[in-house]
């Protein structure tokens, strides 16, 4: 066996040019597939991270009926969460919120808005709300932060008074006036037209819901811990009227959107595989044709065909392995670079991105799965194409081969 390995290894390096051509065609395949997949997964990761941080958290604890009917009457006492297992290795941040609708008014303008009672520090850490302030200060106390688009509609600015009218917990009359402390700009028009932030305690007083919250969102250190964390919290909440949901359950439209896009991406990658496959096949074809005389000599001096086949397959294995390693080595630094410095889009394309509510960047993923999966797929692809030289050897007629 050792002899075959030596022979195969020497054969590869006998014709260096040919070897490098074959290896680099495989390497390019791996490189392109990795970059493409990394971009795709990167954009999903960012989408998920943005939504999770902004809306739901990886996990969120609600009163059971809340998700079906998002009304204040389905809120719960925050004290019920005392004694919940919060493993600091898993849970990075936990954010209480109370959210409901209200009518916002200023002067003659009135608009329906979403009022969120938040803890400013927690919220800044979770969703970076403080970075979205475009006017005034990020500070709540007894005041309000309102979305920039809403401020424009209501024709109010920092220092003006915002009047909120709504129906609170158990249908109580909820009215209040709050000085506007700051304006926050959101890329998503829906949010930018309707978001109002009060501090948690002020919002609770406004809605007559002292001590109550509608959701308690948890941000985990890594999405991979979600299942375990959900299980332990679920077990702890068993028997209470509270339930815990993960972001996949809470944002099915996001999950489905990603799935749809992912399968679209698979088709693209499939086409890429096909093009690459023919390229690799071409080099294999060249390699075998070139060596017909050599194979003829080997069989003529008595080497059994299966042994020739074994030698050829070892060569192909080496070549493919070399190619995949080359491809991974080439893509890793580039992907890492773009992961750390995402490509920033400017101009009209950037506007289009922002209208969809995304940051105008092309993010990359450094999920090891990208490299592993693409490496393995192309490795298998090349090995499958390697069946051709083996079949070629099998059908080889010594006399004919020697006449080449």
């Amino acid at each position, binding site marked *: 066996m050792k002899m075959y390995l030596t022979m195969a290894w020497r054969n590869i390096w006998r014709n260096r040019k040919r070897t490098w051509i074959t290896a680099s065609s495989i390497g390019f395949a791996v490189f392109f597939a990795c970059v493409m997949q990394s971009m795709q997964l990167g954009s999903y990761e960012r989408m998920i991270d943005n939504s999770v941080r902004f809306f739901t958290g990886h996990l969120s604890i609600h009163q059971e009926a809340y998700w079906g009917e998002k009304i204040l009457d389905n809120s719960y006492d925050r004290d019920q969460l005392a004694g919940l297992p919060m493993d600091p290795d898993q849970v990075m941040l936990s954010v209480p919120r109370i959210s409901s609708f209200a009518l916002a008014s200023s002067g003659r303008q009135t608009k329906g808005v979403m009022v969120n009672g938040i803890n400013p520090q927690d919220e800044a850490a979770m969703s970076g709300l403080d970075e979205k302030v475009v006017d005034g200060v990020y500070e709540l106390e007894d005041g309000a932060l309102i979305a920039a688009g809403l401020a424009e509609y209501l024709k109010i600015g920092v220092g003006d008074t915002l009047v909120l*009218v709504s129906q609170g917990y*158990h*249908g109580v009359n909820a009215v209040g006036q709050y000085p506007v402390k700051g304006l926050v700009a959101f890329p998503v028009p829906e949010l930018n037209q309707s978001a109002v932030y009060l501090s948690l305690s002020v919002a609770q007083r406004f809605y*007559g819901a002292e001590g109550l919250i509608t959701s308690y969102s948890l941000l985990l250190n890594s999405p991979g811990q979600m299942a375990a964390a959900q299980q332990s919290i679920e077990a702890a909440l068993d028997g209470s009227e509270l339930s815990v949901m993960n972001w996949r359950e809470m944002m099915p439209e996001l999950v489905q959107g990603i799935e749809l896009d992912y399968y679209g991406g698979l088709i693209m990658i499939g086409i890429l595989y096909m093009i690459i496959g023919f390229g690799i096949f071409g080099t294999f074809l060249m390699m075998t044709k070139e060596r017909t005389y050599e194979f003829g000599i080997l069989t003529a001096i008595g080497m059994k065909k299966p042994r020739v086949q074994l030698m050829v397959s070892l060569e192909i294995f080496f070549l493919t392995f070399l190619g995949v390693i080359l491809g991974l080595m080439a893509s890793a630094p580039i992907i890492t670079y773009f992961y750390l410095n995402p490509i920033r889009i400017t101009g009209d394309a950037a506007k289009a991105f922002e209208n969809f509510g995304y940051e105008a960047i092309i993010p990359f993923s450094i999920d090891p799965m990208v490299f592993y999966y693409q490496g393995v797929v192309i490795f298998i692809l090349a090995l499958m194409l390697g069946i051709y030289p083996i079949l070629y050897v099998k059908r080889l007629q010594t006399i004919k081969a020697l006449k080449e």
Partner: protein
Amino acid sequence: MKRILLLLLGMLVALMAISQPTATEIIEAADQRMQGESNRGTMKMSIVRPKWTRDITMKSWAKGTDYSLVLITAPARDKGTGFLKREKELWNWQPTIDRVIKLPPSMMMQSWMGSDFTNDDLVRQSSIVNDFEHTLEKDTTMMGYDVWKIVLIPKPQAAVVWGKIEAYISKEKYFQLIFKYYDEDQYMVNTLNFSEIRMMGDREIPTRMEMIPAENPEQKTVVVYEDFEFDVELSDQFFSLQNLKRLR
């Protein structure tokens, strides 16, 4: 002989007509009993839900069908909140934000103070006399009273949300006993039950009203009159926005 018989018959018909008031007269009389020319009182409203109840106490003033004023006195967070009705308009005074809000038509069907009553119920309470055609349907007995059942169908041009109202009014003293509200498709929406007939001021009236929505029979809103006076002296100026803000 024939002529005498005819005369007797005529007299009989006339007599019957006198003893049997028309449907409109009955509704008018019943409404008059509950409202008087003007009235003033305090009442307690309890909003009853399967898991919780909430009490609101209030003072109210009313004059004729056009003017009424309600001032919330408890709970503390709502204290001072007032509602003023002038003709078909409803105004809401919110002391916490120092503003008077005119309730737009779009808010008329919304719940009043979280109860089973709508803002519309507050404004249109008395229009049962003017906005409907009344027909006597049949006589029955309920709660120990002989009652008339009267069907109220809105007049074509009237701005009324109901498709039909069935009113049960006692023959003796014209007590309102039950009102059933139907929508345009003749589905029952609400039932308003009156009970606990007691002396209030100068007259006997039902002092407890229960509004039960047909869709959620396990919830209801109960209004109990704690004290009530009728035909009190109230000027039109009393029902002004200025006074709404001033009242305590």
